[in-house]
């Protein structure tokens, strides 16, 4: 067992876990944030995407101990109080979700995509960069619309990498 500490959604958390514990299991089971989902065993589906130090990461691909000391944002930490993040609002407005299971990972991926590209996103780029996230319900049509709309509304400059 190892004590793993990090900042999750701005709050300092700490828990004793087995060394082999994945970040996703740490979030879901050790600190009870169940918005981040597990959809596959092979880091293919993206249902578990969170932000680690501001960048999108598949939390089933990282050990909790590797994230120790980092600042992690999960879907629960994206809205500001009752005010939805623009990407969350866009997913709702454009019906970019149905069963909702892939949605947290989709939204976290989309936020990072917009951070990197700013308002310069086009449909081909969105579709290409969504390849790490699988949705079985929406056919992606409305997810793509939601991300493009959110990017346009946020009017962010692209982040320097």
């Amino acid at each position, binding site marked *: 067992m190892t004590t793993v500490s990090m900042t999750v959604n701005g709050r300092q958390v700490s828990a004793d876990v087995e060394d082999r514990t994945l970040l996703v299991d740490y979030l879901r089971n050790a600190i009870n944030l169940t918005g981040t989902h597990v959809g596959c065993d092979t880091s293919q*589906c993206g249902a578990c995407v969170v932000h680690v130090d501001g960048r999108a990461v598949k939390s089933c691909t990282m050990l909790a101990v590797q994230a120790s000391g980092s600042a992690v944002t999960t879907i629960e930490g994206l809205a500001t109080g009752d005010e939805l993040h623009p990407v969350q609002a866009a997913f709702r407005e454009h019906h970019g979700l149905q069963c909702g299971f892939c949605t947290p990972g989709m939204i976290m991926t989309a936020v990072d995509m917009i951070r990197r590209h700013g308002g310069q996103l086009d449909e081909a780029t969105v579709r290409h960069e969504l390849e790490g996230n699988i949705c079985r319900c929406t056919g992606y049509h409305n997810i793509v619309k939601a991300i493009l709309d959110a990017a346009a509304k946020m009017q962010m400059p692209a982040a320097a990498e």
Partner: protein
Amino acid sequence: MGMEGIGQRVVRKEDKRFITGKGKYTDDVKLVGMTHAHFVRSPHAHAKVVSIDSAAALAMPGVIAVLTGAELVADRIGNLICGWMVHSKDGSPMKMGAYPAMAPETVRYVGQAVAVVIAETKNQARDAAEAVAVEYEELPAATTVAAALAPDAPQLHPEAAGNRVYEWSIGDKAATEAAFSGAAHVVSMDITNNRLVPNPMEPRSAVANYDSGDDALTLWTTSQNPHVARLVLSAFYNIAPEHKLRVIAPDVGGGFGSKIYIYPEEIVCLWAARKVNRPIKWTSDRTEAFLTDAHGRDHISKAEMAFDADHKILGLRVHTYANFGAYMSLFSSSVPTYLYATLLSGQYVIPAIYAEVDGVYTNTVPVDAYRGAGRPEATYLLERMMETAARQFGLDPTDLRRKNFITSFPYQTPVIMTYDAGDYNASLDAALKAVDYAGFPARKAAAAARGKLRGIGFSCYIEACGIAPSKAVGSLGAGVGLWESAEVRVNPVGTVEVLTGSHSHGQGHETTFAQLISERLGIGIDQVSIVHGDTDKVQFGMGTYGSRSGAVGMSAIVKAMDKVEAKARKIAAHLMEAAEGDIVIEGGEFKVAGTDKKMPFALVALAAYTGHNLPDGMEPGLKEGAFYDPTNFTFPAGTYVCEVEIDADTGKTEVVNFVAADDFGRMINPMIVEGQVHGGLAQGIGQALLEGTVYSDDGQLMTASYMDYCMPRADDLPSFDLHHTTTLCPGNPLGIKGCGEAGAIGSPPAVINAITDAIGHNDMSMPATPAKVWAAIHGRAAAE
């Protein structure tokens, strides 16, 4: 019509929790003292279980119990059932082998459970499962219909000689033979419908809790129909009587048919929770899902269509072999029979049809309904044949279809179904306009100039939704009724709770059902909550599949609302001293026609509960329930057109345009309807281009993860161009037909027809992978 009433594109009420991570799925459930289950699964497709040694596993940290199939049998836990009896053409009932929840003696597919480990943590259970020593005696396996029907094939079940479950038929054989003997043209094709894995993004999960104080069990599970699960668990599996078993299907992350059934893991977790007297959670990992979720499709058919000299269809003759996998699943027997062969008339006047279906056991995962269930297989067969026939005759494929369309309704097909309403020319017209068919030759030439092969393909589908009526399906062997129930509870403050027996796992019922109440009472959808998915809250229901929630579930709500509204009118009339017939409901107010008298609905509701001033003899309260049994299936239909461009150097197909023109009858929320079509199209295009389930000859599943099974991703699909035409369904009070399966039913033939158009010959099977398409272009045998 209010701003949130019927026909409005209202954003979904349920989205708030999903986009903020507050959804509550089964794997999110945590109970005090909860333990974790991990199953020991067979690595062999067919083997005798010689011995199971649990000693080493039991000695490992955190391990509470290791339970085997033999103990399950000793505790008289029942075998899994198939709920629809199908008889062979000789009148004999289908031949079924026993399907235990864990195999005590023989395993028949890779992944079948033989034991379960219960431990304090998930990792401890997983580690210990590795230490359970199972000795197997391997037996030869058969994974394809051809292998299972071979003379020297291994026999899976002693009850099913030759691995044949049934040899069923439908239609008039003599009339069909006569049609063929008088035909001017006969078109013949061998058609395979590839096996698919449903792949809802939420893996199956079960949490079982035993309360020894009440001797009662609770199951949280990823189910599309919790009431049917409770009924079957009680009536057939000896888990607990119905009043001592509560089944909760909370937020469910997609189903597509695969979560209709009661699976071995749910039975085992309930049984084991009582045995160890601790709550138990099991959640499938993705490879387990590939190995144990019911698969879909897997048909091989020989089809022949007879035409007269004027290219009118005279008859259709089909012989289909359906691979059922190793056991009969809950509804599997009905899928290639009453849900498939009864749709073989499609949108066409076909005077004579004769279809034979042989159901076959193989050493593969059980096969059952997957999005569309039988209708995609029927549509694929017919629409591939129509396109092929048109090319053979040198006709435009749309002209051949128009020449044979059914144009007068109701229409009785030769295979049971009576189509109630439709306008097939209207959807074809809408699709052709949208796709600019006249401009296709120019687009093809432009593509050729870029070095691409461009093709266009059509599909005119019909489906049967809202499977019904109970009396009819009962006469055909179904073990369940197919009605739906609803209760409308008006609270004293005028807010409304609707309890429904249908289940939402992504379809947006919390919004569409509330829109119906908003339309009726003029109140906002935020004043309405929809209760579903919990057998302790809703008395009974049949769940959600086959697009039944709108046509059947909402019809039950309409019936309950009629009663609520009738009583509310009486109360309002009494309170305002008016005639009942003069009460008008408008904008959330009850008004007396022709006067300025009015009162808000909330005050009518309050009066019902105060009870001080009600008509003489009226019971207080405002709460009504109803059961609705439909009079017929509903028949959504439409035309899909696909345009593809193929890179001849790589064989890669790109869908460059996809037009869908659907007739779903009345749409409650067009935004949600369109979302359903988008999702169905993705699954259908996935089947046509990408998805294929591959078993090795000895029964190993070669496509058991997302590394191997090609799921459609955003980059594989285009944006879709959707259109609607409308003929209302005359069979239900709202005119709803259903939209959930259409995309998956209509799109595969459109895609394959487009590819065959592009490559210039008709020989292409699904999935049309780049290797196969390249080989078809370059005349080489495709590497399968």
